[in-house]
């Protein structure tokens, strides 16, 4: 999928013929300048993985520096402990929400400091939530977890181990999960609408992407030989499941969405929405603690002026009436006297 090329073709390329063009000023190179600078600066991304059954007992962070075609990415994977498998699972997602909040708090402090030259952004940009395929949809612990996190981090729900379901079962399960997400009011990450000036191909791809959520994935670290090629897959007696085969699972869609097209949008939503909500909430809490003032919502107190206004208005009107009547009477009497 040539998404990389697609974006590139939108950039203006002034170097070739425009210098001759008199009308050309040159600020159309701004995107190129931004591009150049961003490549130089590099990117970072933090991905959190949440699944129920897991060996880990504490939150582990793995950070790697990777580079591709000159673009540097500092990728952090946050592995969460398995949760939901104890007998009593109330609030089992607390360590995870605490972790996300901690990163926000750290960033908030750094941002409020005097020296902001080297702020490290450790905020979680995306949380991949694995839903078990061995069920009929979302379990209460799934709902609880997602609702605890949906206002703090972008949740991308995935159906794990999808190689135990046949296509029709996958379809049913996806529909079920989508319904339940709506029913329980869970706000998972929404793919942004694509621009109206995109080509039809892209719009079609975008539609397909949205319709296959939640993605059903299969993961594999082993490389097997299939149809003469070496592919990542799982070897079964009845066949080979190819990870990167779109007919076998949605892995390719997930990778495209997560990395090739929406990685930056995930970061933006984290910064502009989730973090801002946290910050606003935090400030309000702090200030309420400091002043014990319950008037939080409107900084400007509502003035109780309306009622006296209305009453005085009435009074003034009454007096006006009286005045008018007396004046009339006076006129009449004057008239009478003149007549006599």
């Amino acid at each position, binding site marked *: 999928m040539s*998404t*990389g090329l697609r*974006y590139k073709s*939108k950039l*203006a390329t002034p170097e070739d013929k425009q210098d001759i063009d008199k009308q050309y*000023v*040159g*600020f*159309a*190179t*701004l*995107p190129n300048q*931004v*591009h*150049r*600078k*961003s490549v130089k600066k590099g990117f970072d*991304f933090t991905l959190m993985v949440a699944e129920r059954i897991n060996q880990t007992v504490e939150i582990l962070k793995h*950070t*790697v*520096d*990777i*580079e*591709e075609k*000159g*673009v540097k*990415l500092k990728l952090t994977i946050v592995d969460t402990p398995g949760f939901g498998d104890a007998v009593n699972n109330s609030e089992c997602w607390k360590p995870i929400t605490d972790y996300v909040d901690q990163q926000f708090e750290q960033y908030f*402090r750094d941002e*409020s400091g*005097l*020296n902001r*030259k080297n702020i490290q952004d450790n905020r979680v940009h995306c949380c991949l939530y694995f839903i078990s395929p061995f069920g009929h949809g979302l379990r209460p612990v799934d709902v609880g977890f997602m609702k605890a996190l949906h206002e703090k981090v972008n949740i991308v729900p995935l159906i794990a181990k999808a190689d135990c379901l046949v296509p029709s079962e996958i379809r049913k399960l996806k529909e079920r999960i989508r319904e339940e997400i709506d029913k329980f009011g869970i706000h998972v990450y929404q793919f942004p609408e694509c621009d109206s000036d995109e080509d039809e191909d892209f719009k079609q791809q975008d539609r397909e992407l949205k319709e296959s959520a939640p993605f059903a994935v299969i993961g594999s670290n082993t490389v097997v030989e299939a149809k003469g090629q070496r592919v990542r897959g799982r070897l079964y007696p009845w066949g080979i499941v190819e990870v990167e085969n779109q007919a076998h699972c949605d892995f390719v869609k997930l*990778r*495209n969405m997560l*990395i*090739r*097209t929406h*990685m*930056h*949008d995930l970061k*933006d939503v984290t910064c*502009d929405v989730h973090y801002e909500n946290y*910050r606003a909430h*935090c*400030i*309000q809490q*702090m*200030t309420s603690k*400091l*002043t014990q003032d319950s008037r939080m919502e409107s*900084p400007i*107190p509502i003035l109780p*002026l309306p009622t006296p206004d209305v009453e005085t208005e009435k009074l*003034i009107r009454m007096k006006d009436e009286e*005045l008018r009547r*007396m004046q009339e*009477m*006076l006129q009449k*009497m*004057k008239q009478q006297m003149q007549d006599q």
Partner: protein
Amino acid sequence: NVEPEPRSLSLGGHVGFDGLPDQLVSKSVTQGFSFNILCVGETGIGKSTLMNTLFNTTFETEEASHHEDCVRLRPQTYDLQESNVHLKLTIVDAVGFGDQINKDDSYRPIVDYIDAQFENYLQEELKIRRSLFDYHDTRIHVCLYFISPTGHSLKSLDLVTMKKLDSKVNIIPIIAKADTISKSELHKFKIKIMGELVSNGVQIYQFPTDDEAVAEINAVMNAHLPFAVVGSTEEVKVGNKLVRARQYPWGVVQVENENHCDFVKLREMLIRVNMEDLREQTHSRHYELYRRCKLEEMGFQDSDGDSQPFSLQETYEAKRKEFLSELQRKEEEMRQMFVNKVKETELELKEKERELHEKFEHLKRIHQEEKRRVEEKRRELEEETNAFNCRKAAMEALQSQALHATSQQPLRKDKDKKN
């Protein structure tokens, strides 16, 4: 606890995050860009013409007069578009600069304006509910300082002003109306200017040389500062092309001819190569410095990690309390004023009511007086009429008696005659 250094991994195949810069670019193109230029120079030195020439358009500006009593900043914003890039360009003109007899304070309105834009951004950043991504950034990204082509040296006004501005904005000095200086004079002039800037410690903007893609061209251009420019929006036929130029009897000065002036260099550096860097430097260096100073002024130190947000919030909260109490006071004042006004109006109305009532009474009395008098007169009249009638009756009675008496007298006379 110290985190382990991230390790570098090599990738087994194409992943696809090399598209990240494109994603970023796509987003920023959708958002649009804003760029703010401050032009400082004497009246009539060619600032507006140069802007028109640079952006190949005619920005509507009237000629400034030489008789302004102080320097004032005049910002004008334009929406430009080139291929798919939208640019919100703001040109700020320091009107009246250099015209006053006493120029001691000329720099102050300029510094105040730059600080005000930083302040606005800081305020937005400190808001509880902020929207920085669609905030119209008005901070000045570059200051083009126009030097008069005297050919000798910088004026002290230039040095003083640039010194006040160099820590707040990226300064690019330019020699204006460069078609009045010959090549050799220009060379000496440039050296003199740069020398004076260095010896006075003025930090002008250096085109960045840390990015390999543009390091070379930037380094070359740095050596050509200050740029000697000529501006013109008029077109003259040279050869078989129409070019922007100034036509003199002795020849044609072509704006885009690099032998004639440095206009092309300026355009290249300012717009085509370093526009983004100018924006970035403004944000990460000049603005941060302003912010740090401002916050320190408000009384909060960068001591230990724990106290920071609270101190900032404390100061913020203190200001907020102040604001609220001010608001309450104003509210009380207004309420008081309103109550007073109502009382006043009521009193007035009462006064009027009383007056009217008095008048009414007065008129009533007059009326009654009149009535009484009329009544009296009528009675008098009646009496007179009665009296008159009586006298008339009496008179009539007398008359009839008299008549009766005279009719009896003649009979007696006859009787006497018979005897």
